[in-house]
């Protein structure tokens, strides 16, 4: 049954092309909507909640599949009418869905305190689920229509999605975010025109064009972005003298810079500054916001008589050991504070990396240049426009001082530390690279936020640096570290190549005393105390007594008498064990997982192991920095329940009429479950891996979506030539996929190109991607084609729904597996799933009636 058989047209060949192009554009509309909704969410609210909303809205696919499976005959009879209505309303629904969701914003920080937030969240889901449902219906109808040559239809779907992915990224460079929805609107309109052209339905062409005009009108008339009042930029906009002095948009986000006398930054500033400086610098900052988040302070040059101010910042510490260093490397430029400190320390040459080109562009703007005294033009600076950790891993250069201060450190401070994101800049491999890039006697200084209680991310950083130190310095590691902190402010780890001399330690000690910085590790001093008792007592106070918030809980229990469990004491104990690599089992007594970050597990998340989670039930606010991670579990559970309900509806309602008579139903279920889950595991896990070498999530996602979907589309296309040899070819394909995934799991970290230009790295990534994604295009198209051939039409739609449903679950599962075990584990899991699909395929191939 093809479209042409229902409606005779002049040229069947043109008809087929119209159909395939229409599928291409419909698929593109859906993926564009996904990408752009997440983009808009990251400006107005929180990107990871946007992903959550979209993934749940994608249940539109499951719902569409269930409805179409149950009402298969009805849909077959009224296909044209349903398609016509769906096409007519789709565009306006895209715009209205977004407007509604943007207006009724929920706020994650109130989720536990305010019951209304759940309703708002639900409203957000529904607002987006409706357009996704309509899109899914259209795609479902297209799949039914093109079922006989499914591999072609599926290839159009994949290639359409892939090309749209990269188109979205390009458009983000040139179109303001509020108008990005023009892309899905344009694609929807084109898709509808082609669809109606097949049946030469001029009236429908006219109506959908009017609908398109209405949709575009709504897009321009109604606000497409409403920034949450809890985003940083909303506060800046409220300052009485606030003024937006610069803004730009691009693939890296929306960058805004505000000026106001109300901006005050000085991360980690010593409390003693107020007592020791006659006059502190005032009005020295602009506030920079990326996607409404921030601010990052942009500092102007302060007069020479006030430059003593820099001494009161923790970033000054490395210059006590290496005064006037000839070569300094700043891993991330950010707002430029570290760079200023380096210049004030009379560094000879300062190499500064910045992976976000928009920041560098902003600093070249006239107004910003004037404010900063054109810092980037300082003859002592050389700018590296790439991710600092990538540069260091590849460079042959050596430095006297390497500074990594508060870079990309939201996950290290409590505010905003919700999202589960890869932090390659802080992994053991990156730390080892920084250490190896030091000249003899050179100093690496890492400063991060220290605002958690109980501490978690800081301890992970300590563990990571200690491991890297042992890799690089061996037995010299304990003498190579010096760690200080300011309670509830910042902590700084100093690593000196070759170890600190006693004279240097004395100098550092004196400075810390003067600044009221607390030293928690110094060479030559061992922690004296009963570590087991300390950690047991602390762990009990956190996990069992449930009085984490009580100010005097730890002094009133008699057995705790005399046990110091302050953050300082904990740091001293744990650093002592980490640096000396003694009694490492003690670390297990700490109530949270403080394992190091590696390239395979680059997360400041997942501190609460599942066996300890029950201790926090009923007081989740105590671990609010884990909500992003816990939310993944919640979403997984929710996706599993909703998925099972939607999938079982056809089973329950059509068991007697359809399913009981059909052979291989559980094989079909298993097959599409394995493919749906396996494919998305590979896609999302590789996005995570690619970020490490492509430097940012946007480029990585763009390359992955485009490269992978197009390769898969091509694979699907080619699979059509092997349909007859399915029983001999497919086992080889499954084996090949599993083997490649196994090899990538083991070796990808080594093969991904850390060096070379961005184009080169992108090229290598695509080359690595192509064979895998090409082969992964075979199974789905082959399975669906055979279902259509065998006349298992109900299964055809059900299978599509299963695939979609497990894709949603897989998208959530990836970060959970990655945080718990590592990114590579997802690839192994996917390999196992493709092997599972092998026997399932043979069940699927059993003929219609038994």
């Amino acid at each position: 049954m093809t479209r042409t058989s229902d409606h005779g047209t002049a040229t069947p060949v043109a008809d087929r092309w119209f159909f395939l192009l229409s599928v291409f554009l419909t698929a593109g509309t859906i993926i564009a909507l996904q990408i752009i909704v997440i983009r808009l969410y990251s400006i107005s609210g929180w990107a990871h909640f946007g992903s959550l909303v979209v993934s749940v809205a994608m249940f539109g696919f499951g719902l569409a599949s269930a409805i179409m499976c149950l009402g298969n005959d009805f849909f077959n009879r009224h296909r044209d009418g349903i398609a016509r209505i769906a096409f007519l309303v789709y565009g306006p629904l895209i715009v209205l869905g977004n407007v509604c969701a943007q207006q009724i914003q929920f706020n994650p920080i109130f989720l536990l305190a305010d019951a209304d937030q759940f309703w708002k969240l639900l409203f957000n889901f529904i607002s987006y689920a409706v357009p996704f449902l309509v899109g899914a219906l259209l795609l479902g109808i297209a799949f039914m229509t093109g079922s006989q040559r499914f591999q072609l239809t599926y290839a159009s779907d994949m290639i359409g999605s892939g090309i749209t992915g990269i188109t979205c990224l390009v458009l983000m460079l040139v179109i303001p975010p509020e108008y990005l929805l023009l892309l899905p609107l344009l694609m929807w309109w084109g898709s509808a025109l082609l669809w109606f052209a097949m049946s030469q339905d001029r009236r429908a062409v006219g109506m959908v064009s009017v609908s398109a005009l209405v949709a575009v009108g709504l897009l321009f008339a109604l606000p497409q972005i409403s920034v949450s009042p809890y985003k940083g930029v909303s506060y800046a906009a409220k300052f009485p003298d606030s003024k937006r002095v610069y803004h730009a948009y691009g693939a890296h986000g929306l960058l805004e810079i505000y000026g106001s006398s109300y901006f005050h930054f000085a991360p980690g500033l010593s409390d003693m500054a107020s007592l020791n400086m006659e006059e502190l610098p005032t009005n020295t900052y602009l506030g920079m916001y990326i996607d409404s988040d921030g601010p990052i302070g942009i500092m102007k040059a302060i007069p020479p008589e006030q430059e003593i101010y820099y001494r009161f910042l923790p970033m000054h510490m490395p210059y006590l050991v290496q005064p006037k260093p000839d070569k300094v490397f700043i891993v991330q430029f950010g707002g430029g504070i570290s760079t200023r400190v380096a210049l004030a320390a009379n560094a000879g040459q300062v190499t500064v990396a910045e992976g976000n080109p928009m920041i560098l562009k902003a600093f070249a703007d006239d107004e910003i240049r004037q404010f900063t005294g054109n810092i980037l033009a300082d003859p002592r600076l050389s700018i590296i426009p790439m991710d600092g950790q990538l540069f260091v891993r590849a460079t042959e250069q050596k430095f006297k001082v390497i500074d990594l201060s508060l870079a990309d450190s939201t996950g290290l401070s409590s505010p905003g530390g919700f999202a589960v994101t890869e932090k390659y800049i802080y992994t053991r491999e990156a730390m080892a690279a920084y250490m190896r890039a030091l000249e003899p006697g050179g100093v690496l200084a890492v400063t991060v936020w220290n605002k958690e209680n109980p501490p978690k991310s800081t301890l992970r950083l300590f563990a990571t640096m200690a491991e890297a130190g042992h890799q690089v310095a061996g037995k010299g590691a304990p003498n190579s570290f010096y760690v200080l902190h300011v309670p509830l402010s910042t902590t700084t780890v100093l690593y000196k190549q070759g170890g600190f001399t006693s004279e240097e330690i004395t100098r550092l000690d004196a400075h810390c005393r003067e600044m009221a910085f607390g030293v928690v590790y110094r060479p030559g001093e061992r922690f004296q105390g009963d570590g087991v008792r300390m950690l047991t007592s602390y762990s009990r106070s956190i996990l069992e007594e449930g009085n984490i918030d009580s100010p005097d809980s730890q002094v009133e229990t008699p057995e705790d008498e005399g046990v110091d469990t302050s953050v300082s004491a904990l740091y001293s104990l744990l650093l002592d064990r980490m640096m000396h690599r003694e009694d490492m089992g003690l670390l297990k007594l700490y109530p949270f997982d403080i394992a190091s970050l590696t390239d395979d597990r680059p997360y400041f998340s997942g501190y609460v192991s599942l066996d300890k989670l029950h201790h926090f039930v009923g007081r989740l606010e105590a671990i609010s920095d884990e909500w992003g991670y816990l939310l993944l579990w919640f979403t997984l559970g929710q996706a599993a329940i909703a998925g099972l309900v939607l999938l079982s509806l056809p089973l329950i309602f059509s068991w007697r009429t359809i399913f009981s008579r059909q052979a291989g139903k559980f094989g079909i279920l298993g097959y599409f479950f394995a493919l749906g889950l396996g494919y998305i595991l590979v896609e999302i896990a590789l996005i995570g891996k690619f970020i490490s070498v492509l430097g940012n999530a946007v480029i990585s996602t763009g390359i992955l979506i485009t490269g992978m979907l197009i390769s898969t589309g091509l694979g699907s296309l080619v699979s059509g030539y092997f349909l007859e040899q399915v029983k001999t070819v497919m086992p080889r394909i499954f084996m090949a996929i599993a083997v490649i995934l196994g090899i990538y799991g083991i070796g990808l970290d080594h093969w991904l190109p850390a060096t070379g230009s961005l184009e080169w790295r992108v090229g290598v990534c695509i080359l690595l991607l192509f064979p895998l994604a090409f082969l992964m295009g075979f199974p789905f198209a082959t399975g669906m084609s055979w279902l259509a051939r065998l006349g298992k039409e109900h299964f055809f739609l059900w299978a599509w729904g299963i695939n979609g449903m497990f894709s949603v679950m897989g998208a959530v599962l990836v970060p959970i597996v990655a945080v718990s075990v590592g990114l590579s584990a997802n690839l192994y899991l996917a390999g196992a799933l493709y092997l599972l699909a092998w026997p399932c395929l043979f069940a699927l191939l059993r003929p219609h009636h038994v």
Partner: protein
Amino acid sequence: MIYRNIHKVVCLVTVLFIATPIAGHAEHAPAFDVATLPVPVDTDKAAYLESMKVMTLQDKKMIAWRYDRFLALKHNKDLWRDKENRAFLLTPREEFTLERNKPRAYDHAFLDIGHGVTISGPHLVMRMTSALDVQPSDKVLEIGTGSGYQSAILAHLSNHVHTVEIIEPLHKRTSELYKKLLAAGHAEYANVHLKSGDGYYGWEEKAPFNKIIVTCAIDHIPPPLLKQLAPGGVMVIPVGPPGKQTLLEVRKEVDAEGKITITRKDVYNGKKSVSFVPFTKQEGGTWSGRGLK
């Protein structure tokens, strides 16, 4: 019984101060003496409700909820002394929340108050207040007026409460609320002096302060506030996002040689009674440094 004559006193005080701008009082002549505040019976709920009958304008349901929360705060050691008990039991928290959040006013939760800010949970407000140990003669500065609830609590403890709010419309809204409450008989709020401005710079004209309480997020302790803190003074700052704040106590002390030292203490995690320890031996989460002059 206790309240037999209080009602008349409250009305009289209200009449005296209702026509006077709130921020117009001199520190040395407090508009209201906290020593004259009634002491509600807190031994059991029925007695408390009976004793609060005099507060005719307060919603009885809210008063009952307040007592329930009071018990929870006591149990969790958020309230340390009788004076803080009294402040909590007399302050109508519901007046400082948005209308739609009134039913949740006494929940163990922070609540939205508009303008992108929140009113902290009662547990945090009372623990911060307890940590400050405010004396009636203390001059207190609050940075971040917000809903006004914290300063209302402080008004039951000190005769000199100063508070600064950065968001102008919120400052206006809270000022109006105070006028309304003053008119309704809460004479103690005459001691609250409000100002709109950047709290980073404190309130220099009124400095020095014996106690400073900061209720807004910042990446460092504002040096002007440390300057405006009187020797021997205490500053309390909650650090972190709403719902996940830890409490930092900063003390400015003068040692025997006349040198000023600043110490930080994490009130939540460290021990409650920590005496000054030399920097090289960190205990109890206290650090200190010496001023150069």
